[in-house]
């Protein structure tokens, strides 16, 4: 092809224009990636800022706000306005600011035009400073506070302070949820933050992004029941000298946790004091994070397995001596005495270790016994929607540290560790016609104005309907036979005490302290509540029937009022109409 005359001019022009285009592209990339430019953005007129959507609120099942948002302030100083620093410092001191912290912040950004003096300042402190600013405005000597700026934003607030604190957890200043619900549902509560460079000077207008808020959630917790349970637990600790305690109240049909109290509790508005309130390895929520040997409350699971497998019947009678040998070791009754002939209700009513060890070792055998324990979920986390759950430990034949004697001791809750929530979930099978329910604290989520409720989940059927009803009757009869202090007039309830020795880290058991617990449900014919009470190391008495059973009674007396639960006779009359 023949070139046109002067075509070199076009080629040269194309090359020049192409080179200019490439140069522009290179410059764009250089500006984007240049650390020098990034430094200018970081320290100069622009700052990188995270825009957090308003965090979703948390309500109890009756619509009472448990965690909400409040206005807090970022307080900053415009250096370009040449502020009179002694006046500024005096005002900050009067408003309760930490001057050391303020000086440190100023020294960290020597060339900045705008310095953040403090953040998450409460409205009351900010109001004080604003009032001083107003007074000093227009001072003829120039000693004003006009260079101080206030940027309002959201901060987390807990109107109930420490109520249900062990369930809720808290949110730190970086908008991250820690522990409890705040951690478990952090991703949906927090929403999706947006990060962008904005002018540091608040007078410069900029378009802020529109961010959808975090989802609101409703808990299964009933604020009134939670408060009553916490008060009962606090009083129990005072009365018994126990080192700590836990109470869980659950609806055994749905798995909804109505209340969960654990000590100590934290005022969530002062979460910074967590290390003082929870020294060392203290669990934030013992109900899900502390595994312990449950003791005799676990006998209900052994008896359930034995009845369900046909190993024993309620009317089975056995001679209960003072001890029984299992795996080469002697196991004794709690009082060291022989109890003669006992039926299975008697074994439960008198909490006889020898009887239960006989059942697991002689009547059930290890395969059947451990199969039932696993069906009840022992050794596995329940999956409850709270952060920090631990699985406990159920040693099985074949494990390197399992010994044959544990077939006997496990039958009465020794040598096996569980969390209170595991016991509650396992017992739900007994209270709910053999169906074991998933315990949960999330009742519903609100998204785009629509509420979606959590559905009941059945996690297993470890025993039959008949076994569950039979055992409930046996336990109710046992309480009535022994005239338990757990009984509530007018309401037939089933339950079992537990007094457990505390294993020492180096082996053996603590001779001075015990764990005391009570698990029960009612009304027996149609259970509406399942309550677990655990007191650690009570000092006034070592017997659970003396220490914990009355606490259970107190809880149930509150529950029947708050749940509008009439006495059995009236309720059955109403049903009959």
């Amino acid at each position, binding site marked *: 092809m023949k070139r046109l005359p002067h075509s070199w001019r076009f080629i040269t022009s194309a090359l020049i224009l192409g080179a200019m285009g490439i140069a522009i592209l290179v410059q764009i990339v250089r500006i984007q990636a240049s650390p020098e430019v990034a430094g200018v953005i970081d320290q100069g007129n622009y700052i990188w800022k995270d825009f957090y959507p308003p965090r979703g609120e948390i309500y109890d099942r*009756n619509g009472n706000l448990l965690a*909400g948002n409040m206005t807090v302030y970022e307080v900053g100083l415009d250096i370009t306005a040449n502020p009179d620093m002694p006046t500024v410092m005096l005002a900050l001191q009067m408003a309760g600011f930490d001057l050391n912290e303020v000086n440190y912040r100023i020294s960290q950004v020597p060339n900045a035009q705008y310095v953040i003096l403090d953040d998450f300042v409460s409205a009351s402190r900010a109001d004080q400073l604003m009032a001083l600013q107003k007074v000093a405005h227009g001072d003829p000597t120039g000693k004003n506070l006009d260079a101080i700026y206030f940027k309002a934003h959201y901060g987390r607030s807990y*109107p109930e302070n420490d109520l249900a604190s062990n369930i809720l957890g808290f949110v730190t200043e970086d908008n991250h949820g820690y522990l409890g619900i705040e951690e478990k549902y952090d991703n949906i509560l927090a929403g999706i933050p947006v990060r962008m460079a904005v002018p540091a000077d608040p007078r410069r*207008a900029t378009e802020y992004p529109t961010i959808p808020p975090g989802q609101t959630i409703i808990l299964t917790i009933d604020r009134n029941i939670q408060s009553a349970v916490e008060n009962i637990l606090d009083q129990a600790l005072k009365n018994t000298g126990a080192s700590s305690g836990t109470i869980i109240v659950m609806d055994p049909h749905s798995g909804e946790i109505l209340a969960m109290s654990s000590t100590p509790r934290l005022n969530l508005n002062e979460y910074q004091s967590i290390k003082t309130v929870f020294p060392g390895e203290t669990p934030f929520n013992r109900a899900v994070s502390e595994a312990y040997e449950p003791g005799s409350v676990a006998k209900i699971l052994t008896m359930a397995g034995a009845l369900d497998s046909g190993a024993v019947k309620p009317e089975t009678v056995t001679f209960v001596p003072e001890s029984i040998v299992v795996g080469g070791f002697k196991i004794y009754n709690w009082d060291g005495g022989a109890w003669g002939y006992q039926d299975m209700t008697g074994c439960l009513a008198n909490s006889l270790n020898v009887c239960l060890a006989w059942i697991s070792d002689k009547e059930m055998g290890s395969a059947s016994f451990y199969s039932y324990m696993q069906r009840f979920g022992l050794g596995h986390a329940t999956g409850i929607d709270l952060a920090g759950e631990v699985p406990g430990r159920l040693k099985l034949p074949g494990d390197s540290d399992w010994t044959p004697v544990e077939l006997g001791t496990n039958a009465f809750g020794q040598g096996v560790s569980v969390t209170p929530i595991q016991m509650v979930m396992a017992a739900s099978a007994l209270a709910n016609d053999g169906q074991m329910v998933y315990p949960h604290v999330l009742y519903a989520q609100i998204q*785009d*104005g629509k509420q979606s409720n959590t559905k009941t989940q059945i996690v297993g059927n470890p025993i039959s309907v008949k076994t569950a009803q039979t055992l409930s009757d046996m336990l109710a009869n046992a309480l009535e036979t022994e005239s338990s202090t757990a009984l509530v007039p007018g309401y037939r309830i089933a339950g079992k005490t537990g007094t457990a020795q505390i294993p020492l880290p180096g082996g053996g058991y603590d001779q001075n302290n015990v764990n005391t617990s009570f698990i029960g449900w009612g009304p027996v014919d149609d259970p509406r509540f399942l309550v677990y009470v655990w007191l650690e190391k009570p000092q006034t008495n070592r017997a659970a029937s003396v220490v914990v059973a009355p606490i259970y009674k107190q809880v149930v*007396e509150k529950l029947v*009022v708050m749940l509008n639960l009439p006495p059995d006779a009236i309720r059955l009359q109403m049903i009959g109409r």
Partner: protein
Amino acid sequence: MNNVTHIVRKVRQAPWRAQRQWIGLFLLGLVLMAMVAGIYLNVTVRATLAGRETITLQAMITTNQRVNADLETQLAGLISIESMQKRAEAMGFQPADPTDITFVAVPGYKGQSAVDLSMPIGNHPEVPIILPEYTESWFDYFMNQQVSSALNGVQP
């Protein structure tokens, strides 16, 4: 006839006449450009003002939302269980125990159910606040018109 043709050629070729034509054309172009620039400036200013107003309104919405959340939390503090218990005690109430309760059968009453915080029907923010006509390009607008017309089976 020849004379007439000669005169017409003279008039057409007169230099002042050609200049006037060029000046007229230039002025016409200038006026057109000024008109386009004026319209463009007018639209731009209106768009800018609307944009600034939108930003201001968005800021107001954000502030109002924050204030509402703050007030809601303050209200929750005022009606917290601790406050309510204190007020109830101050008014002479005391906690009920099971023996204080008289149960009455009410036909059809199923007891208290948990709260429903769904937004009432009609309050769902399904319709965008800023209509697409304000954000889409001409090309998008025409494409959307074509698509919607095709879907509805009518001529645009």
